[in-house]
C-alpha cells in the first residue's frame, strides 16, 4: 500500500500547470471561470494545442497518438485542466468514439479517423438516444438496411449534444429486425453533410442551445463505415458508456466550482456580513467538500484498479459510484452557487450566450448561476441516469 503520489507524478503535475500557464488563452480561462461552456472556437483551438504537445488523447495507446501516461498521470491531467479551468479534450472524439474505433475498428478506419479526431479536424457527436429509447437504449428504432454496398439509414435521434457543431456522428442503428433487441444493433459512422440529415435545435430549460434532434431520411453510408461486426454494435455501446461514466466524476471541476463559490460567498453579504460567515451556509459547503475529498480517493482507487483491468476491455463497475457521487456533488455545488447569488441569480438569459449581462443588471459573477443550476439537472439523467446506475450496482455488485 502506497497512498501518495510519487515524485514523478508530482513533477508531471507541475509540467501540466506550466503548459496551461503558457498555452491556455486567458480569454478562454476567464470565460470558463464565469461558468460558461467553452465556445466551439475555444475548444478547437485548445485541442489543436494539446495535440501539438501530444496530449490530446490521454486514454489512447501510444501507437495512435496517446501520451502513454500512467493512470495517475491521466488523472492529474484531467484534474489540472478542470481546475485551471481549461476546456477538456472533446469527449465525443477522445473518450467516446475514438476508443471504440481503437478497440473494434479496422486498420483503415483507424488511419482515416483517429488522427483527425485527435486534432479536432472533425467534431463528432453521439447519436444514441431516440424519442422512444432513452434509458432503454436497446429499444432504439432507427434502422439501417444494406443496399448495393451502402447502409441506408432512416429514423430519428434526439438529445444530440452539439450536433450543430458536428462534422460526423456515430450512430446506433438496428440492422437485424428479428433478433433480440440487443443483438440486432450496429455502430455506424456518418458524415453530417450526407444528404438526408436534418438537425433541429432543442432549447433546454435555461434557454441554451446545446442539444438537437437529428433526422435521418434515406441517408446513405458506405459499408466500410460500420465499426466492428454487423449486429454487434451493442458491445461498442456498452464499452463506450462505461468510459463515459468514468469521466463524470469531474473532481477537478467540482473543486474549481467550490473555490469560486467560496470567493463569491466572501463577496456577497447576508445580514450585513459575508455569506461565508453564515454557519448554516458554510456547513452546506463543507458537506460538499468532504464528499468531494472521498470521491477523489474513490477515483484513485478506480485508477489503481484500471492498471490491473487493462486489456479486459470491460469498464470497472465501480464507475457507477463515480457517476452517482460525481453528479450529486456537481449538482449540489451548482445549487449553492445559485443560492449564493441570492436575488441576482434570477436574471434570465442563456449563460452561454456571447455578450450576456451587457445591460449590467446584476454583478457579473452572479449572472447565469441559476441557468447553470437548471442546466446541470441533466447530469443525473444522461450517461445512464442515476437510477439506472443503481440498477447496475444492484445487479453487478449486490447480486440482487
Amino acid at each position, binding site marked *: 500500500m502506497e497512498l*501518495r503520489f510519487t515524485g514523478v507524478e508530482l513533477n508531471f503535475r507541475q509540467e501540466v500547470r506550466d503548459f496551461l500557464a503558457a498555452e491556455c488563452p486567458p480569454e478562454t480561462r476567464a470565460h470558463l471561470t464565469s461558468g460558461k461552456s467553452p465556445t466551439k472556437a475555444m475548444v478547437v483551438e485548445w485541442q489543436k494545442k494539446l495535440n501539438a504537445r501530444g496530449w490530446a488523447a490521454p486514454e489512447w495507446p501510444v501507437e495512435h497518438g496517446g501520451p502513454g501516461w500512467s493512470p495517475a498521470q491521466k488523472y492529474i491531467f484531467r484534474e489540472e485542466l478542470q481546475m485551471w479551468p481549461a476546456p477538456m479534450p472533446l469527449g465525443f472524439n477522445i473518450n467516446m468514439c475514438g476508443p471504440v474505433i481503437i478497440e473494434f475498428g479496422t486498420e483503415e478506419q483507424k488511419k482515416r479517423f483517429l488522427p483527425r479526431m485527435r486534432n479536432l479536424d472533425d467534431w463528432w457527436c453521439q447519436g444514441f438516444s431516440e424519442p422512444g429509447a432513452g434509458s432503454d437504449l436497446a429499444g432504439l428504432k432507427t434502422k439501417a438496411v444494406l443496399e448495393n454496398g451502402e447502409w441506408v439509414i432512416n429514423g430519428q435521434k434526439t438529445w444530440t449534444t452539439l450536433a450543430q457543431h458536428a462534422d460526423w456522428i456515430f450512430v446506433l442503428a438496428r440492422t437485424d429486425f428479428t433478433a433480440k433487441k440487443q443483438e440486432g444493433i450496429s455502430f455506424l459512422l456518418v458524415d453530417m453533410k450526407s444528404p438526408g440529415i436534418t438537425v433541429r435545435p432543442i432549447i433546454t430549460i435555461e434557454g441554451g442551445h446545446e442539444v438537437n434532434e437529428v433526422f435521418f431520411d434515406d441517408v446513405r453510408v458506405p459499408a466500410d463505415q460500420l465499426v466492428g461486426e454487423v449486429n454487434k454494435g451493442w458491445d461498442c455501446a456498452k464499452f463506450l458508456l462505461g468510459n463515459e461514466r468514468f469521466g463524470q466524476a469531474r473532481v477537478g471541476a467540482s473543486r474549481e466550482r467550490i*473555490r469560486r463559490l467560496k470567493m463569491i460567498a*466572501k463577496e456577497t453579504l447576508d445580514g450585513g456580513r459575508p455569506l461565508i460567515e453564515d454557519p448554516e451556509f458554510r*456547513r452546506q459547503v463543507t458537506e460538499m*467538500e468532504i464528499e*468531494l475529498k*472521498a470521491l477523489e480517493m474513490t477515483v484513485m*482507487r478506480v485508477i489503481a484498479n484500471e492498471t490491473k483491468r487493462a486489456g479486459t476491455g470491460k469498464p470497472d463497475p465501480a464507475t457507477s459510484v463515480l457517476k452517482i457521487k460525481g453528479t450529486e456533488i456537481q449538482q449540489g455545488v451548482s445549487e449553492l452557487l445559485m443560492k449564493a447569488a441570492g436575488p441576482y441569480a434570477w436574471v434570465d438569459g442563456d449563460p452561454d450566450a456571447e455578450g450576456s449581462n451587457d445591460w449590467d443588471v446584476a454583478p457579473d459573477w452572479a449572472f447565469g448561476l441559476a441557468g447553470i443550476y437548471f442546466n446541470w439537472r441533466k447530469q443525473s439523467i444522461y450517461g445512464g441516469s442515476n437510477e439506472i446506475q443503481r440498477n447496475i450496482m444492484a445487479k453487478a455488485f449486490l447480486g440482487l
Partner: protein
Amino acid sequence: MDFDLNESQSLLQDSIRKTLTAKYGFENRKAYMASETGWSREMWAQYAELGLLGLPFAEEDGGFGGGPEETMLVAEQMGRHITLEPWFSTVVLGGGFLRHGADAALRQEMVEGVAAGETLLTFAQTERQSRYDLFDVQTTAKKDGSGWVITGRKGMVLHGDTADQFFVTARVSGASRDRGGIGVFVVPATADGVSVRGFRTVDGQRAAEVDFTGARATHVLGDPEGGLSLVDRVVDEAIAVLAAETIGAMDVVHAMTLDYMKTRQQFGRAIGSFQALQHKAADMLVAIEQSRSMAYFATMAGQGTDAGERRRNMHAVKAQIGRSQRLVGQQSIQLHGGIAMTMEYAAGHYFKRLTVNEAMFGDTDHHLRALADAGGLVQAA
C-alpha cells in the same frame, strides 16, 4: 498510488481473519459479553500471541514496528467482528500517548507489558461539561513536591474498569476552555484517590466513570501546560483507526442485509427483487465505498505533521464516515424488517457499534462545524 497489500500485510490480515472467524462468531461474542469482565481474556492473550498488541510500537521499545497501514488492517478486522476487548483503548489511545508523548524510560517501562497483554491502558478525557471539546478540561493537576496530584471526574473512560494505567488530561493553569495550560498525566489505577465505577455501553463494550481525588501521577508527558497538541495528535490517529474499524463493521452488516434480502420471501418473491430496496442497498454501497476511500485518506492524513491541516483532514474523515455509517446502520435495520430489532440477531449489534463510533471523539455535526469554522478543505479562488 497503490492500494494493494504487500506480502507481510496480507499475512497479518490473514492471521487475524482466521483467528477471529474461528473464535469471534456472534455466539462467542455473546458469551464474552456475558462474562465477568465483559470481554475475553482468552482472546486478549491470542491478540498478544499474534503480535497485535505490540504492533505499532518501535522495535527498540519492545514492539514490532508496524505502521498506520498495519494498524488499519487490524482495526478493520476488529470492526468486522465488533470485538469487545480493550484493543482500541490500550493500543491505539494509551499506545498513542506512549509513542508520541512518552520518554524512553516510560516506554521501556510500559510497552513490553502492553505487547504481552499484561498491561491495559486507557485515556481519561471526557468531563460532564466538555462534550467533544478536547480542550475543555476542568480536572486539575497541582504540583506537589516533585510530582503532580490530580483531582476531577472523568466520564466514558473506555475500559476504565479494567485499565491499569490512565492517561489523564488535567488543567495546570488557565480557564476551563483555554487551549493552553493542559497536561497529560499518567495515573495508575491502583493509586490512592482513584475510584472507578464500571458499566456497559450500549454497544456492548465496557467503560467507567473515574474519580481522581488528589491522586498522584507517576508521570507527566512533556510540557505540563502544553499537552493539547499531543492529545490532538493521538486523537487524530485514533479517528483514522476508528474509520477502519467502522468500514469493517459496515461491510459486514451490509453483506448480512444483502443475504437476508436474497432469502426473505414476501409476496411470493425475495424482497431483494423489489427495486425500492435495491436502490437503498445501492446507496448503502455508495456510502461504504466513499467511506472506504476516506479511511484510506485517513491513514495517510492521520500522520500529517502540519497540525492544522491534519485536524482539518480528520474532521472531514470523521464527518464523511459519520454520515455514511448512520445511513448504513439505519438502513440495514430497515431493510431487514422486524427481525433486526431483536437482540438475538446480529444486525442490531452492528448498528449499535456504528452509532457509538459515529459519536466517538466527536459526532458528525461536531466535525462538520469544526471543519467549516477552520475554512474547509478547498481554498477560495
